[in-house]
């Protein structure tokens, strides 16, 4: 008896349809690989912004005081001209009185400490 011929047509297999490229397991792309440059970019931008703000708000250095260079000739004192009556004895006496007045007023004793009232015992205290 002849063996039945092996059918050439293979039974259909359940192969899923391929809709796109098939990657190997290790080659699946991760999301952070695309976000990372964005984060770095934003970071650089923020850093740049901080630097700008810092530069703008930084207190300005105090202007360097220009010290006068000492010279050998001193600044001349303005010449004051005495009044016509300033040398008269009446004015000189007035000047002396005026100059002494503040010390006279501040040095005067207004309240004499030696006149403080005596302190005495009032109640005799014979009641026990």
């Amino acid at each position: 008896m002849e063996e039945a011929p092996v059918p050439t047509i293979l039974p259909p297999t359940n192969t899923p349809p391929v809709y796109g490229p098939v990657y190997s397991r290790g080659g699946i792309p991760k999301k952070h690989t695309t976000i990372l440059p964005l984060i770095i970019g934003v970071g650089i931008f923020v850093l740049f912004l901080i630097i700008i703000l810092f530069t703008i708000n930084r207190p300005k250095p105090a202007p360097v005081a220009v010290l006068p260079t000492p010279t050998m000739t001193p600044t001349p004192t303005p010449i004051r001209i005495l009044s016509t009556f300033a040398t008269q004895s009446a004015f000189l006496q007035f000047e002396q009185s005026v100059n002494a007045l503040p010390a006279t007023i501040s040095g005067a004793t207004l309240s004499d400490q030696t006149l403080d009232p005596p302190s005495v015992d009032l109640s005799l205290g014979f009641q026990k």
Partner: protein
Amino acid sequence: MILPIFFLFALPVYASSQRSYQDYLYQYDQYRQNLTDFQTAKNTYLQFQSLAAQTDAYNKTKLFLTQRDNLFKAYLLLLSDKLDENPGVSPNDKGTYQQLLASESAFLTTNAQQIPGAISLNDVTSLSPPFENQYKTLQRDIRKVLIILALGQLTTLNNSFQTITSAAQAIVTANATVFPTQKQATINQWVTQIQLKEQSYQKQYADLIDSTNKFDGYDVRELDQKYNDILKGVTNARQLLIDGASNLIELKDELKYIN
């Protein structure tokens, strides 16, 4: 010629105050001694209640009460002399406050005169309450006189200030055309400043007089508090005079130079 005559009048006044002060110090020493003796005698009597202790307490109480009156009389005399010597107190005020002192002194004299007549310890101890009752009035009148003395000192200082201010004003008026316009404006500013100080002083002084006239208190503690407040006012008034004197120096410097 004038100077010896001045001292001739000044010396007795000075001596009078000095003498009454020395007497006051002596009376105070006596008082302290009598107080110690009285306290010892009283404590002995309270402890032993013996007749001898009672007699001793009676005698020491008499001495103590007499000396307490004498101490205040000496003190009032000192105040009276100080009032007389103070050139800043007006004759009218001197009269008023001398009368006040005389009235207090008369009370003490009357009180002291009753002490020798006390025949027992009970009698003599009954003479203390009138003094105790009068004590607040006495302290009030004493402080009033002390305030008047301080105000008198203040018035003397103000008189000196007024004299020099008048002299400055006379110089300003006499030389009104001498100075350039700008300089004259500065001079006028100082004159105005001095006048403002004078006005402030006058107001402060009037307030002090008013406070003195109303001066009273519930007890000695309150009297002391009010007395110290018035003294602070006196010091403030003095400060106004010091400020005015500083302004006078500025004015003098302006007047001294033409530019």
